[in-house]
């Protein structure tokens, strides 16, 4: 199992290395052109592949199946991959509302009890 995962990852990195657009470094792609370079998002091939591997590893660690991971990573753009690799652990993940009531109740009780100020 472990071995299989490693080989999937290796294939993924290889795929990212050969599939990166554009083919050469001097050409300026549109995504690069329109992204605010507030944080230097590097788009060279190696770093692109590494960002892909990082995102893939995290998705797998979060329970996404290895078959799905490759397709999902391939669907993300260069910039999205670079940004996800940086921030995905703290990025919002919108989900179900099952635990909502309980969480609210606990927070409100704590708030009212003066344990802490929940409202900012």
């Amino acid at each position, binding site marked *: 199992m472990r071995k299989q995962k490693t080989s999937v990852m290796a294939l993924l990195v290889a795929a990212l290395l050969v599939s990166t657009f554009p083919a050469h470094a001097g050409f300026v792609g549109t995504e690069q052109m329109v992204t605010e370079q507030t944080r230097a998002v590097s788009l060279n091939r190696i770093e692109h592949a590494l960002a892909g591997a990082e995102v893939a590893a995290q998705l797998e660690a979060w329970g996404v199946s290895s078959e799905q991971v490759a397709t999902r990573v391939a669907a993300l753009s260069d910039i999205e991959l670079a940004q996800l690799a940086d921030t995905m652990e703290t990025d919002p993940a919108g989900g179900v509302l*099952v635990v909502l009531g309980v969480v609210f109740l606990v927070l409100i009780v704590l708030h009212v009890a003066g344990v802490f100020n929940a409202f900012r």
Partner: protein
Amino acid sequence: MLQGDEVVPLGKLCRGSGAVKTVASALLAVVLSGCVTSPGQQELLGAASVAELTEVPFFAQDEYQCRPAALATVLVHGGVAVTPEQLVSKVYVPDRKGSLQAELLAATRSHGRVPYRLADSPRALLEEVGDGRPVLLLQNLGFERWPIWHYAVLIGFDAQEKTFVLRSGTEARHTISANRFLNSWQRAERWAIVAVSPSDPPAGASALGWLRAVAPFESTGELAIAAEGYAAGVQRWPEDPLVWTALGNVRYLQEEFAKAEQAYGEALARAPDHWPARNNLVWALMARGCAGLARPWIDAAGSPPADFAATWNRTLGELAEMGDGGCDTVQL
């Protein structure tokens, strides 16, 4: 509460019809007259306008599996044949019990729709709904410190009652006060998107916003869709050099070098100091074996700004290696 007979089912009207225009202008008046005092303050004061996209489908989230219901809602409304179950494998992250924004964008693209990120104003939300488009948005139903992230779809609003109407979770029609809604949206950094066809930038779109939404198609090799999006862009913003450059880029990647040169030419005619256009034009000329033709463009260039110097030097280096040959092939 909403009165049934006041509700204008926008989706049942043709776009651009009189009724829609009336609603849209009423809406605009609402927004313009609304006093915006704080981020949470709603902008719907004193208006009598109501809209609801009644025909937007509803997919309930079930309690045990997080079906990407909100994403399915906007895609299906936009004519994509998809079910929440089919989207699970594209966006659901089991241990996070939810979906990441970046993956929602990617999944939208994988169905051939452009995920356009709306401006972070309530007005932008209202305009889209007024235009007949449901809005997929992120809410934080918890607190800033203890967020509870939730995706919902905005389908309507009632300016008089100061309420918004959402397809949300297990509720097909969730009515929420404007204040509470806008605060929950504010805590999620006002993230909202619409899913549109590549040929149809939203009425309120900006050129830069549209390029940011379309460019990932180019990066992931979906060149035909990128080309469609950029072509729609130059129709909408014909004076914007950035949009022309983007069109040139996708033509270059499609190996339509003459068309690329033409688009870069349009960009440079409007903004001679647009360095990416000039740089990529040189690449297009080299690609079709006309390196010699690049010379006048380079001589006229002057020197690039500091942050572009490295790229420009690489390009000049490449050109020097190729020599100043004339065209190998005649394409024009």
